[in-house]
């Protein structure tokens, strides 16, 4: 039985993968397709989007009409279950003296946070891999764009990404035929595009992991796995079973027809179909066990359903538990230097980065009184703005760029959706109020920025030795401070959004200073706490996610990212995991591991 309902693992595996999200899911699939015997250990419960996703559920079927609460921070129907910035029994702390409390998102479920994300899938560009060479800040990656470009193609072909090739600097094109056609823009997106045109802000097709048409299941598997007929068959069959988007329901709910990318709909089903993957859910990893020669030999976990401790052995261990969980496991694992496992560089837990986030919206009069149009679309944005001032940083006063996400129009009505009537239509009630509501409904539009932050010595986590979670595992303790680069960047976003809104006929007052920037951790793009690099003295892994100190220990999630470009990290985590697993299998074959 691949999903271990009896809670009993085999005593040993070729590879243990800790975590089931983008990195863990990809690693398990890639290895299992080549015959490697894999155990996946997931801290959350089993989760099946095909049967559990609330696809067409309407707000009146939900508590508080589906509104956000501290228990359901993205609303009742959000796909994340047993997760959020607070998880019962799993606290974290902030260090005294921190300038902003870090919010740590966890998704305790199979598929992790791939069940809840915007599906925005942007490749890091040529400049993103060499930031230090360009502006002297942060560190360069141990690889160039060209080194990973083929794996970006492979990932896009496997999961399905819509978008256009626009030839914009540092926003790389995909190889011909790789991207799916993007959906046409909605009316607000067209008005924004017109406003952007006046300002010189390019607004082009978004890149999102949503099937705008069926995948080419006959040809793609052959291209992806040329010498592996079994893999071709498994992937081909699985692609055939994925339906294209039917232009309804928000992607944040997940997708029962498997039109968008989730580890649970795209990676785990074919990985299980190989027969080479076992999964144990509700199993919280306490530490990695190392022998006297410094090799990882086993993983120690707690079975949450029985509170039983268990140890399972493997030849190779891959941590993909999510950035800060991976570094927490390393810091909690014993080793010779007592500074945590794989931490001879002292970099584990350091260099924590999130995206710089901010948003601004307004009422757009020209969107009033439009005829009814179905604007659900692909359950997320159809257009975006790549960073357009990539060569202008000397004039801007901050070092790195951002992309713009946007949305509005005739969305499914939500609690608070008519807040604008307080100012547009005070004192009105009765039939007249309904006419006002009809006039203003769907005439709002907003912009959100996602910007690159630079790693700094004040943003990190360590272990709080005074606090344990309900499993007795010492918790993460965070420290945070934005630098001027991030604050100025957020102000630039606010000013740009105000100008874009004005160009659309709206009006909004941009926020200034630190008030412009969202909370650290709020954008849920935290990366960097076990970065890869070229030297063991200043990084935790090599470019293949192998830790320098422990040759059979790999990290395949956001923790290895040396920088956090404005492009959301999921696509890159997938590409790195795929590339690293192929290297890992070569090393295993050559018996170097």
């Amino acid at each position, binding site marked *: 039985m691949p999903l271990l309902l009896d809670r009993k693992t085999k005593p040993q595996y070729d590879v243990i993968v800790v975590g089931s999200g983008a990195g863990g899911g990809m690693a398990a699939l890639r290895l299992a397709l080549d015959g490697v015997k894999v155990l996946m250990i997931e801290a959350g419960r089993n989760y099946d989007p095909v049967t559990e996703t609330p696809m067409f559920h309407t707000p*009146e079927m939900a508590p508080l009409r589906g*509104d956000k609460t501290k228990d359901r921070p993205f609303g009742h129907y959000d796909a994340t279950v047993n997760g959020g910035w607070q998880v019962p029994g799993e606290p974290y702390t902030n260090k005294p003296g921190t300038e902003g409390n870090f919010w740590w998102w966890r998704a305790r479920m199979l598929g992790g946070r791939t069940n809840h994300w915007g599906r925005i899938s942007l490749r890091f560009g040529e400049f993103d891999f060499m930031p230090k060479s360009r502006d002297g800040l942060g560190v360069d990656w141990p690889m160039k764009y060209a080194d990973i470009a083929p794996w970006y193609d492979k990932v896009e072909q496997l999961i399905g990404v819509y978008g256009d090739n626009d030839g914009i600097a540092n926003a790389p094109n995909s190889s011909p035929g790789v991207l799916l056609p993007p959906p*046409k823009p909605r009316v607000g997106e067209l008005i924004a*595009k017109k406003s952007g045109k006046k300002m010189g802000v390019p607004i082009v097709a978004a890149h999102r992991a949503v099937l705008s048409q069926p995948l080419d299941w006959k040809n793609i598997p052959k291209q992806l796995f040329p010498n592996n007929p079994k893999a071709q068959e498994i992937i081909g069959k699985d692609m055939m079973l994925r339906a294209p988007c039917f*232009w309804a329901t928000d992607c944040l709910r997940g997708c029962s027809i498997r039109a968008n990318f989730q580890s649970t709909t795209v990676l785990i089903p074919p990985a299980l179909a190989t027969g080479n993957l076992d999964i144990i859910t509700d199993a919280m990893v306490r530490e990695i066990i190392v022998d006297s020669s410094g090799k990882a030999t086993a993983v120690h976990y707690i079975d949450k359903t029985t509170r039983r401790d268990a140890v399972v052995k493997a*030849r190779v261990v891959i941590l993909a538990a999510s950035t800060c969980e991976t570094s927490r496991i390393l810091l909690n694992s014993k080793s010779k230097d007592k500074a945590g496992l794989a931490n001879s560089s002292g970099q584990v837990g350091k260099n924590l980065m999130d995206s710089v986030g901010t948003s601004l919206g307004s009422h757009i009069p020209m969107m009033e009184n439009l005829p009814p149009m179905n604007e*659900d679309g692909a359950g997320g944005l159809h257009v975006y703005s790549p960073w357009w001032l990539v060569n202008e940083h000397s004039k801007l006063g901050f070092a790195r760029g951002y992309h713009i996400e946007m949305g509005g129009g005739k969305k499914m009505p939500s609690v608070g959706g008519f807040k604008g009537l*307080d100012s547009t239509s005070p004192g009105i009630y009765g039939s007249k*109020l309904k006419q006002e509501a009809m006039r203003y409904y769907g005439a709002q539009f907003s912009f959100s920025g996602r910007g690159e932050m630079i790693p700094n010595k004040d943003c990190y986590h360590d272990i709080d030795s005074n606090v344990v979670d309900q499993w007795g595992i010492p918790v993460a303790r965070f420290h945070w401070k934005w630098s001027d680069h991030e604050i100025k960047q957020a102000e630039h976003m606010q000013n740009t959004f105000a100008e874009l809104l004005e160009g659309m006929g709206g009006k909004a007052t941009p926020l200034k200073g630190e008030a412009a920037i969202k909370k650290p951790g709020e954008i849920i793009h935290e990366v960097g706490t076990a970065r890869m690099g070229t030297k063991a003295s200043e990084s935790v892994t090599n470019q293949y996610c192998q830790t320098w100190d422990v040759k059979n220990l790999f990290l395949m999630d956001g923790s290895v990212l040396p920088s956090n470009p404005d492009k959301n990290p999921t696509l890159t985590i997938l590409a790195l995991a795929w590339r690293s697993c192929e290297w890992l299998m070569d090393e295993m074959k050559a*018996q170097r591991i």
Partner: protein
Amino acid sequence: MNNDHPSTMNRRHALKWLTGSAAATAVAPAIAAPTETEAAPLAYPLRSAFHDPDFSKPATGSWQRLLSQQELKTTKALADLILPKDDHGPAASEVGVSEFIDEWVSAPYEPQRDDSEVVRGGLGWLNTESFRRFEKRFDELGLEQQSQIIDDICDPATSVSPTGTKFFVQFRQLALSGYYTHSATWKHLGYVGNVTLAGAYPGVPQEVIEKLGLQDVA
């Protein structure tokens, strides 16, 4: 599959790689020891109704409702005055607005608790005012009399009572939220989504593109 792949090698070889050497195994008591402990009870339930709801069944908040029968009657009367049955859709009471407001003001969350004070205080104020002017409860008044009271507080610019106005603005907002989050109001509002569409996404109708002058970007 390659024949020289580790997973296809025999078990003896696999074990040899796994343990590295006999010496290493001997000094790793954590592995040599029994690999399991006994089960123990949970400190927290594995599945919390709040964090991990069951989407298969419609549900409202599981908490106890606070509004009295009388408060509910006043709520219903005011919600129907604000959003009456007419050509633009059903009355507020037909789409569960008063039940929603009760659920909202009873909820165990901080923002809702703040609203609760304003709303329940306001419902009380409304009846006091109604008794003072007409010697009847608000829900017993005719539309004209109800409007007389509401007209004095509904507009912040002309209001005679800041407290009354704060209540009305808050209540109207909750009523609008409850009303338009019910799918029975969507057709009138102009929301036509939440249905499947076959083929490619249709985009913006040509007449809208022309009306808004978007030909150059469409």
